[in-house]
């Protein structure tokens, strides 16, 4: 996804359980609306009303259905 894209979370992969738990606790859960704010140098997105910054590796665990 790139900056400005919107979508909703489909799934948070659990291959790394600690990572998945941290994301879930921040509200990154199935159905949550997502808006990407930035992709370089770090990935920053708005999930519901929480702004979250992550490193690129973590982004690969969040599956999003893009809507716009």
């Amino acid at each position, binding site marked *: 996804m790139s900056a400005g894209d919107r979508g909703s979370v489909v799934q948070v992969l659990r291959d*790394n359980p600690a990572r998945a738990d941290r994301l879930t606790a921040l509200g990154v*859960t199935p159905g949550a609306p997502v808006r990407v704010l930035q992709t370089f*140098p770090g990935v920053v997105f708005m999930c519901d009303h929480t*702004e*979250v*910054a*992550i*490193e690129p590796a973590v982004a690969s665990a969040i599956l999003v259905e893009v809507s716009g």
Partner: protein
Amino acid sequence: MSCAQAAVKIDRKLPLLKLRARPLRIALVGNPNVGKSVLFGRLTGQYAVVSNYPGTTVAVTKGRALVGAEVCDLIDTPGVNALDGELSEDELVTRGIVTGDDVDVVIQVVDARNLRRGLMLASQLATCGKPMLLALNMIDEARSHGIDIDSAALARRLGVPVVETVATEGRGVADLRLALSDAVVPSIGFAAGREHAAWAHALASEFRLERPRAGGRAQERLGQLVREPLTGLPILAVVLYLMYLAVGVFGAQMLVGVIETGVFKAFINPGAVAAFNRFVPLPFVRDLFVGEYGLITMGLTYAVAIVLPVVATFFFVFGFLEDSGYIPRLAIFSDRIFRAMGLNGKAVLPMVLGLGCDTMATMTTRILATKKERLIAVLLLALGIPCSAQLATILGILGGISFAALVTLFTVVLGQMFLVGFLAARVLPGERSEFILEMPPIRWPHMRNVFYKTALRVRWYLGEAVPLFLIGTLLLFALSRLGWLAAMTRGAEPLVVGVLGLPAKTAQVLIMGFLRRDYGAAGLFAMAHGGQLTGAQAVVALTVMTLFVPCVANFLVMIKEQGARAAFAILAVVTVIAIGTGAGLNAAFRVLHVAF
């Protein structure tokens, strides 16, 4: 209405005054940044320190709150994101408190803009089995964001009271007090089992209405400008320059000038010297207090006149940047670099704080997730981060020489830090955690809170610094009396003069620098002002000093955080690197005939 009806109405509104064996104990729980500490302050009349980043409410804050006619015990807990499943240290602490015997009722503070997350936590909190109620806080900000919540309906569905509050203005706090008697242990209405997220999502969608947003675009735009490298880096440069103006110019030069020259040199020191000369017959005691290494003439003067103004200004600026939400956004830029050093962007928090006081910053490394990260962060803090008084000295001395001198020092120090971090990441066992960080909203800070935080930090610093300054002075006094200082200086001379190319007196300054880093810095400052150092020597001396061992306070905290073995190992590594780098610089300058 009839008399009977009126009577019933009044009865229900009266707060229940129960006869208890001990005060009612209330715990405040919630996600980070929801306004728990502000609410705590409102309920207790006590101002609690409010900060944005995790691990700030490290100790559990307790207070007394007046509820109706009852005095209750109130406990503020660290912000948590989960209370069920795999938990962090903060979360374990909070869960322990809530499930324990010391809590009677729980108020969960929920950010109205993040209802879903709040409900997710509420669902987990329900598994703790205590009577609870929800405080739906920041309801005003939510409304301005276009979010409306039907709190009455939500309360009916959950079976627990839901009170709307605006903690910063004290609104709803009275209702909260009244609602305490209605708190119940949730059973129905909450998720059975562990499907907290899905349940919360469904419930939030049902009770939350979103209108298209009126304003608030500016806030987002500002966040974007700060975050994106193209605009963010120039902004960072501006922020650093403003910090330099505030701390380096206003604090270090103006304030110090006023206090040192105007107050100490003009009144206090001559006055003290005169008084001691008149009233105290023993030369030993006279020297102890007002001699060359006098407790008043050196110890107190350095602590209050030179260090305090600088540190106070730093804490003020840092507090401002903290509350505005700027500092976590720095983590976004720096993440990549930190990852190469075995850390991640989150480490920017202790690193920046280290520019104020390394000792405080070393304690803050607790917010880093893995043991390896904490060790590397402590190592790098000890190695390369100059604390504010030291920074002021660097800027004061090198700034007066040339910009090139300043750049050389920073390049060398940063380079060494990166190298050491890079190597440490490869050599040390363990993992680093992944960078996942919540960004608090960008906002203009509440100035009262910034002042209060600064005052608290300055008070902490004074309580820690002044005794150590005095002890340091005492030690220096003892060392000079015993002739040991001269002996140590002579012993270090070949190293200092031969290898580092510095005047012999620098040895003494470096030794004293261990007792108090800023102490050594002040000594160096005096030398530079006395014209005893050339430009190149100043660069070498300051580079060695910056890379050199941390001060005693920092060392003690290192032992506490990392254990004695690690602390001594760090001490050794850092000393070797400091002297080695100094030697290298000295040699390079001589060979290349560099002058500043």
